[in-house]
């Protein structure tokens, strides 16, 4: 009887210690998980921020500004037309070409 009690006591002690360890381990892992989740969220937010920045760099307004200021480009209108004439084309086409208002690109 006494021996059985002793064995049971040891078993209870071992189980208790194991429980403490498991609890500790689970909390440690939970902290890790928490950290990873926070990291994921941060990366997600960074992604969002970068996407917005990317969009902001590529908006038509920005492109227009750069094209006008840095590249000295201007808006095309059909009024600026270059007529290309065939060498052997009839004279009428040549006449039209000379009448057209054209600018060199």
């Amino acid at each position, binding site marked *: 009887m006494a021996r059985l009690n002793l064995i049971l006591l040891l078993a209870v002690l071992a189980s208790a210690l194991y429980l403490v360890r498991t609890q500790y381990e689970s*909390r440690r892992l939970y*902290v890790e998980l928490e950290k990873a989740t926070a990291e994921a969220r941060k990366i997600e*937010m960074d992604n969002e*921020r970068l*996407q917005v920045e990317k969009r*902001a760099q590529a908006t*038509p*307004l920005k492109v*227009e500004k750069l094209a006008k200021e840095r590249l000295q480009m201007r808006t095309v209108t*059909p009024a600026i037309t270059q007529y290309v004439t065939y060498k052997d084309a009839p004279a009428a086409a040549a006449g039209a070409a000379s009448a057209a208002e054209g600018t060199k690109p």
Partner: protein
Amino acid sequence: MSRSVLYSSSPLLASKTPVWRSKFIVAGIALAFAGLAGRAAYIQIFGNEFFQKQGEVRFARTLELPANRGRILDRNGLILASSVPASSIWAIPEDVQASKAQLAELATLLEMPLADLNKKLGDEDKTFVWLKRQVDEPVAQKIHAIGIKGIYQRKEYKRQYPEGETTAHVVGFTNVEDRGQEGIELAFNKDLAGKAGSRRVIKDRLGRVVEDVGEQMPPVEGKDIQLSIDSKVQFFAYQKLRDAVIARKAKAGSVVVLDSTTGEVLALVNYPSYVPDRRKNLTGEQLRNRALTDTFEPGSTMKPITVAMALEAGRIKPQTIIETGPGRYSLGGFTISDTHNYGTLTVEGVIQKSSNVGALKIAQKMSPQEMWETYMALGYGQKPQIQFPGAVTGRVRPWKTWRPVEQATMAYGYGLSASLFQMAHSYTAFAHDGQIIPVTMLKSSEPAVGVQVFSAANAHAVRRMLQMAAAPGGTGPLAQTVGYSVGGKSGTAHKQVGKGYATNKYRAWFTGMAPIEAPRIIVGVMIDEPSDGNYFGGVAAAPVFSEVVQQTLRMMGVQPDMSVKPQITTQAVEESF
């Protein structure tokens, strides 16, 4: 050994212990155990709740799970507004310990003079001072790197508007508390904001979360709102409007582009505008969403509506002859005049030449009640059914109070007021075969179902007149585009100043649609006070209409319905106003 006490044989110890004593001891110990058991029962069972709570207070915390504010997207999914993290910097002035160099560095990062920073930190009575709200993330990291004691950061979110001033009036903005203040941000604040959740956790000594307890309330993320706005159309409209307002030395201007099959708003721009991220020195002029919130007398742009209602009532036919000579008409002490004497015109000619006398003579064939009912059916004098803050009703007085001269002036757009948005909306009745369709700011793909105001045949007849008005010989030939047939009506309204009309202040309008046979879009343009001499709607507003139509239809992939001809601009007919 001899000194030790022999317990068993010592006569001193042989005294007989009374039985009650041992019983008393046993009872005493039993009582003590009973006390312990009672206490244990109290703690574990009866007072359990209280002790649990006390324990929890010492290690459990409730964390708020913030909900992300939804994004605002355009019809193609491009971002118009989105939240990005931005830390706010705060300090406990008492605790701040920093060298001069550190403070100087902090001041430059916060973009504030060193003196201001010192003043903020000098107030020892305060235990909490905001140094700057919502600084950009890279700057916040640099501030963290300086490592001054007593300076803290709080995680917050800031709205970013990549499209800047082009969409400012549509999208609106939020305040520092992330609540919508203007535009869509305000109108859809509830949907965008979402609902914060919470979770109960156990924290250890180092403040790390080690366990979840109890139930979690996951946050309800803010919904993304997809608008009907096309950011490219929006940009072109803004660009053309801005260039026109500057070129015409005007005060302001607005453009509205509607999809005439679905009723979606493709673009809504105003100039002057503002950059939503930098709102420091904003003026009311910049903030005003004129297209929706300002009402004006629309002038000649009303004439097609006058004609349409007379057609619908069967009082006239497109070819009915109207005598407009001698270009003047006296009524109730007022003289209404045209810029030229057009003599005898057909109804089509009245629209084409924009004759005031012609329009009033057509209106005289109608009763005030009939006119009023049509105005109401077309949405005048009522708030547009659109999910947008600040939209105004405009003014159409009850028909019973109309005097004959007022009925006459309303025929050509004076004596009643409307916003540009209402104007463009009412033209859906012409574009959509007589049906006025509901408009929406949200993306929708189904064709809108409207209310029949005019018959399809009459709508078609008016479209033909609009096409004539926008063609050479009409008042708005500058509205012509390359490849697409257009129709529209220009308007030039004297501005009301005080009680009368200013003689040298005008408002130029142009409202029209394209392609004219099967309209896809309606474009309304308004230029406020063009002051370089070109103040006619056909000169100031029509070119903007032309360019916006051209770009928008091309972008929508609409096939050109006319062969491309070189641009020839003929002299416009001078318009009456």
